[in-house]
């Protein structure tokens, strides 16, 4: 997919961010192109979540510029809300709306934010729920579903907004092992269909399989950026080598 005329969907330029005195993001520069799947890995506390969350301004930044499909992300206001709706986000803890049915969880965004009529929103939602394999749960509430099912609904909820890019922050980390596969399958399918994705994960086999590019972060910096085969077979930095070794230890 590396053509000359790639469209940049996300451009991060010289992003810096502090939490108090803690410098969590240090001069981050990253461009994600249309249809690209970028996987961010790195040790705990390296700033992966924070980076993900700055992309739709769930976290503010101190300096730098975030461009979503050509539009500079503003600090606040209606324009920010609109641009946010173009960036889907899937969280570790699913975060479905506890009081709404599965169907309403998926229709609420389109109906309220995009102004989609109820009937159309419901048809689209049912199609999406079918796509992620939970269409027969539509009338239930989130607490009645397994974690894996909830996460698939969360993905459907984001997709219902027709986002230009999807962000995933450790989408399988809160799941029982037997449910990880079903969520990764949905994500693999999405990637195959050409969705632009930024994924934070510790699932290295999955990363190797679906990523076009691996970003390795450490202490708030992007230390390495490479194609998966190259990265996993020959990491360029000692930090990355150490990190991959600890993962191997863990999986043993």
């Amino acid at each position: 997919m590396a053509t000359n005329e790639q469209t940049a969907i996300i451009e991060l330029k010289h992003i810096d961010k502090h939490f108090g005195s803690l410098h969590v993001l240090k001069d981050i520069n990253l461009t994600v192109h249309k249809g690209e799947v970028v996987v961010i890995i790195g040790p705990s506390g390296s700033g992966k979540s924070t980076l993900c969350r700055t992309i739709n301004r769930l976290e503010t930044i101190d300096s730098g510029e975030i461009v979503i499909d050509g539009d500079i992300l503003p600090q606040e206001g209606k324009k920010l809300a609109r641009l946010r709706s173009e960036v889907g986000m899937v969280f570790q803890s699913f975060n479905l709306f506890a009081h709404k049915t599965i169907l309403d969880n998926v229709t609420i965004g389109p109906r309220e934010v995009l102004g989609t009529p109820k009937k159309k929103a419901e048809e689209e939602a049912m199609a999406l729920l079918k796509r992620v394999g939970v269409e027969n749960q539509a009338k239930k509430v989130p607490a009645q579903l397994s974690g894996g099912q909830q996460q698939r609904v969360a993905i459907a909820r984001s997709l219902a907004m027709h986002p230009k890019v999807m962000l995933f922050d450790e989408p399988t980390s809160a799941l029982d092992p037997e449910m990880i596969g079903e969520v990764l399958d949905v994500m693999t399918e999405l990637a195959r269909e050409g969705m632009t994705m930024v994924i934070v994960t510790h699932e290295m086999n999955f990363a190797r399989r679906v990523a076009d590019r691996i970003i390795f972060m450490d202490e708030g910096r992007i230390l390495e950026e490479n194609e998966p085969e190259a990265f996993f077979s020959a990491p360029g930095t000692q930090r990355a080598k150490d990190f991959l070794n600890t993962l191997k230890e863990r999986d043993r």
Partner: protein
Amino acid sequence: MTIQELLAQFGDKYLQALITTYQLTFISFFLATILGVIITVMRVSPIRPLQIAADFYVQIFRNIPGAALLILLVYALPYLNIVLPYFTAVLIATTLIPSSFCSEYLMSGMNTIGAGQIEAARSLGMTFMQMIRHVVMPQAIRSSVLPMTNLLVATMLTTALASQVPLNPTDLTGIVSYINTHAVGGITAFLISAVLYCGTAVIIGQIGNQIDRKVRILR
């Protein structure tokens, strides 16, 4: 006087008193809930002056004694050339105080929601008001049914303040003093009012429990 004698002579007065108490109770509670929701939205809004004003409001009305507020409304406001009918003055007092408690209950109801859902709403592109309307308030209200039930009972008891002003028809507490100035009702006159208050409270409690069971959010 026996209960039968009292009811024979003052039965219709008791009925009117009960209606007055119910009117004050339910109108106040209705208005207090609306005010409570508005105050709560202000307290969680991103606009600092609104937060401060709403917090101040809650501090004032959560802490002022009902009788003091009623005295202010009835005796102090006329100095500002505002003369309220007695019923209105009582209604205002029994609305403002419960509204601050309502806001407190909604705030703790909100704490059950969790930051994750708020972030999910924001990342869908919802505005603050959309988030409040569709995600925050419905859950806050549904998890506050039991405290709000208690608040309804407390509001009813607060309406006894009405006995401090000359209302006609008077309320369930006022009727006791009325009877005791017109006849020798004694403790029995009070007993009838007490039974009516308690009976109503029990019914409210039952209904509240059932509503809570119906709307409780599975987590």
